[in-house]
């Protein structure tokens, strides 16, 4: 195969054409739905080919390619970029196909031309963020991505909830960009260039204080986008209010821009970093994963629940990065490579299963017209396809074998476990503790997805809308089937996919990794054959054999036996209704009580009575948990900012003389500064 560049450029042009077609069909929603999203599908396919080519021939794509000669708009598909481009292309393909069906009911009510424009602009921005070869172009692409994501989030702007979520998002996103900008300026000042190639290993050559500043600025700046705790507060508000196809992109790939940035900085700009950086990143990863899953457990809005799980999975990815940084600092590039592979594989896997879950949730929300799980139920009968796809996504995200989530979590566990032997200081205790907390996270995620699948899809419908729900359109189901199949391929075929990482780890750490990750061709191993192996494909094969035998034997028995259906046990009351069912609130109640120190749950029971308090006519019940981060961190910050700006009002007198004086003083100061230089 040849160079990936022609395909990359055509993909970018296809997204550009899609955006333009959105403008052209501004007032013709039916045309916009078909044309704009057809361009998105085309662009995704081309991008997929480009990513495959770049990964197959890493050397052909390292050189950067100027897009426009006037500005330094250069792109580069090095292995790390290609991996994220692949993730983007796969998800964008499925989501764009899904959009054909999903947007059909919106044709009458919505400006789909605008949606098509911003959607393609977002894909264009994402593709450029992952491939930009210099800081200037990267930041420009970043803004295209951030602003078009904002416009997509605010698409259903008539709801106040949507507007406030979008504004919080754009403010926090820009706060992050400022930090990135500062860090890039520090690097550029030292390199004398804004080229990423010039930044390679540069950060480690800076003086320690500056090194720390660059690291922290980048970590926080990209952390806002990725949604690490405590910078995550915008995420669970912004992701659910967007149309569901956009939610899938937001949770699947937009937050991965932060992950891409971290990977670029940690493993390209930095050489072996100081140990504290890894310790910090690992700790933040653990906290992020736990906080994300704990909030998800108490969430009964299906899409918000999924958004909180994005925070959890970002935490798992960041844990991998943290471990890799620590291994680099301690001089174990091979272990660092395993940790990076785990983190990057989880990045792709999370994009796939979270995309799948959001698309399935979107089908449900469109059909039932609510995001509240307590008003769903029994959908497995009305929407069998959607239910099956959601279940596959739920198994994958819970990290259960043999699907893809299991593989990347397994790699992360192995990296953490091996970490214990790398040092003799107390730091080594961090690794198994982080591993145990990862186990807690994964188990809580499984509990949460029992709820997220069980309450909406199983048992009896809890509302009229749920009882009459309609299955999703074929285009939507094809898209979900594509992602569900990818969950299987990435899980069962992990041994065939992992050699791709050779070029990435070679680039980042100078060690190819696949030879130490593959055992006997069919199993994964962690470094050496003795250190532990796993084979999802083998597990699946034996599982099929055992389950097949069991099904055959039991059914042979049952042929001669009586199989009847009857009502489920309802405590002897006549007829089981949906009122008897366990609710999502009840399901998560034990964990709410056990972790009450974290949740600070509040509950209020107010009986209203007319005659005597013993005979209440109405009982009002309210329960909720405290939004700790908003209340204890962001509210004081907001008050401080408002207080400061109130005090600043004193100098904004409105007098033109005062403003002229300000300009004069500024000029003098600048001149003095210039002379001193």
């Amino acid at each position, binding site marked *: 195969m040849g160079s990936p560049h022609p395909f990359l450029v055509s993909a970018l042009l296809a997204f550009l054409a899609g955006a333009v077609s959105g403008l052209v069909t501004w007032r013709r929603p039916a045309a916009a739905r078909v044309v704009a999203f057809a361009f998105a599908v085309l662009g995704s396919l081309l991008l997929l080919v480009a990513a495959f080519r770049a990964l197959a021939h890493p050397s052909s794509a390292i050189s950067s390619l100027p897009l426009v000669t006037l500005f330094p708009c250069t792109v580069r598909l090095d292995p790390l970029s290609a991996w994220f481009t692949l993730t983007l292309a796969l998800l964008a393909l499925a989501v764009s196909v899904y959009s054909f069906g999903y947007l059909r009911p919106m044709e009458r009510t919505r400006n789909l031309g605008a949606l098509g424009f911003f959607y393609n602009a977002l894909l264009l921005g994402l593709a450029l963020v992952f491939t930009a070869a210099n800081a200037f172009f990267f930041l420009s692409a970043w803004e295209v991505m951030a602003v078009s994501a904002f416009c997509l989030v605010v698409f259903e702007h008539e709801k106040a909830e949507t507007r406030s979520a979008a504004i919080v998002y754009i403010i926090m996103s820009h706060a992050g960009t400022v930090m990135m900008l500062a860090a890039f300026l520090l690097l550029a000042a030292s390199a004398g260039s804004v080229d990423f190639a010039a930044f390679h290993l540069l950060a480690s050559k800076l003086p320690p204080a500056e090194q720390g500043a660059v690291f922290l600025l980048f970590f926080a700046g990209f952390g806002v986008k990725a949604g690490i705790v405590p910078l995550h507060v915008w995420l669970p508000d912004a992701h659910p209010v967007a149309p569901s196809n956009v939610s899938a992109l937001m949770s699947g790939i937009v937050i991965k821009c932060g992950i891409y940035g971290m990977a670029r900085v940690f493993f390209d700009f930095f050489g072996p970093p100081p140990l504290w950086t890894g310790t910090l990143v690992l700790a933040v990863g653990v906290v992020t994963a736990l906080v994300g899953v704990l909030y998800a457990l108490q969430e009964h809005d299906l899409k918000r629940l999924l958004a909180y799980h994005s925070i959890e999975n970002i935490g798992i990815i960041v844990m991998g990065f943290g471990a890799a940084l620590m291994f680099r600092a301690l001089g174990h590039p091979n272990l660092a490579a395993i940790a990076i592979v785990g983190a990057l594989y989880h990045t792709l896997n999370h994009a796939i299963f979270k995309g799948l879950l959001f698309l399935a949730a979107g089908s449900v929300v469109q059909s039932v017209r609510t995001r509240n799980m307590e008003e769903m139920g029994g959908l497995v009968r009305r929407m069998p396809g959607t239910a099956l796809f959601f279940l596959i996504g739920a198994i994958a995200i819970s990290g259960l074998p043999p699907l893809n989530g299991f593989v990347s979590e397994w790699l992360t566990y192995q990296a953490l476990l091996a970490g214990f032997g790398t040092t003799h200081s107390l730091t080594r205790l961090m690794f198994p503790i982080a591993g*145990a907390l990862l*186990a807690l996270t994964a*188990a809580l995620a499984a509990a949460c997805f*029992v709820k997220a699948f*069980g309450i909406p899809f199983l048992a009896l419908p809890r509302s009229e809308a749920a009882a009459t729900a309609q299955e999703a359109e074929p285009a939507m189901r094809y898209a979900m089937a594509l992602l569900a199949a990818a969950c299987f391929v990435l899980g069962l075929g992990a041994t065939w996919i992992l050699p791709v990482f050779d070029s990435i780890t070679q680039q980042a750490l100078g060690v190819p990794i696949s030879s130490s990750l593959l055992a006997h061709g069919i*199993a994964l191993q962690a470094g050496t054959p003795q250190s532990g192996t796993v084979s999802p494909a083998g597990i699946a094969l034996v*599982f099929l054999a055992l389950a097949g035998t069991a099904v055959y034997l039991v059914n042979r028995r049952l042929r001669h036996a009586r199989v009847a259906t009857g009502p489920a046990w309802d405590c002897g009351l006549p007829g*089981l209704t949906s009122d008897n069912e366990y609710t999502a609130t009840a*399901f998560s109640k034990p964990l709410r009580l056990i972790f009450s120190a974290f949740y600070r749950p509040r509950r209020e029971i107010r009986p209203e009575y007319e005659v005597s308090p013993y005979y209440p006519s109405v009982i009002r019940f309210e329960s909720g948990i405290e939004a700790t981060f908003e209340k204890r961190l962001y509210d004081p910050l907001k008050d401080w900012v408002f207080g400061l700006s109130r005090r600043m009002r004193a100098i904004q007198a409105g007098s033109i003389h005062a403003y002229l004086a300000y300009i004069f003083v500024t000029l003098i100061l600048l001149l003095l500064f210039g002379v001193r230089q």
Partner: protein
Amino acid sequence: MIAVFFTAVVQLLLLLTVAPLVSGLIKTLKARLQVRRGPGILQPYHDLHKLFRKGMVLPDTASWIFTATPYVVFSATAIAGLMIPMISAKAPLGLFGGVLAVVYLLGLGRFFLALAGLDTGSSFGGLGSSREMTIAALAEPAMMLAVFTVAIGANSTSLSEIAKVATSTTWHFLAPAQMLAFAALFLVLIAETGRIPVDNPATHLELTMIHEAMILEYSGPYLGLLEWGASIKQLLLMTLLINAFLPFGLHSKWSLGGLLISLVYLLLKLLVLAASIVLVETTNAKMRFFRVPDLLAMAFTLAALGLVSTFLF
């Protein structure tokens, strides 16, 4: 390849046949300790035989999840059973997964079981699912930390490797890290197999049951598969505990004589472990559900102490 297939079949048959025996053993021992006659030691075989001969009633609210669950639980547990060293230090399917895969395969079974509990629409099912997932979530970190302590000692998550290292070092199990990890895993074993003081396997009193609540609507062959799966899981966890910590008598090669000796040792050790479970069950009352986290936190602390103790010894 053929050897692997052969050893897998042998171990599978062993799992299927010994698992009900251990359940029966625990029931009989418990009855004797409580000065009852109790059912015979072979009662679980009779129960399974009866269940597989019967017809069944499916709840009309249930979907295909309800039907699929018994097969998933049974198969996932059986595969996990093939990944642990039982009568030889080399587990038949050791290549396909180590201790992490075992934990996660059990998790897969639990995931479906909890879904099946919700699927019936009855309050009990949901109640059981909610409690089961809560306890499992709290048991998991303790279990992993204890397992890590062992895995770090052997520098491997492969159970065959762990057993091999354990057999090669004499009196290894007296190291404080090992003993603390053993204690932690014993507590997890109690929680995971639904024993008193966490759950009562003998009860059908609505408010106290966990595992029984989830499978309340099952009957006939499906119930048989689930019961069988539950006893395999119990045997699996007990064997894991035995062979990771007290592996003496475990042969590392698959030879007939060695296997027979290993089998005798295994059965003896299972007897002792079953007796200690019975002792715990008889001398303790069932805990209030919200006291269980304390027990599991204790297991976590023990495992963490085990890790810290590697600095001291």
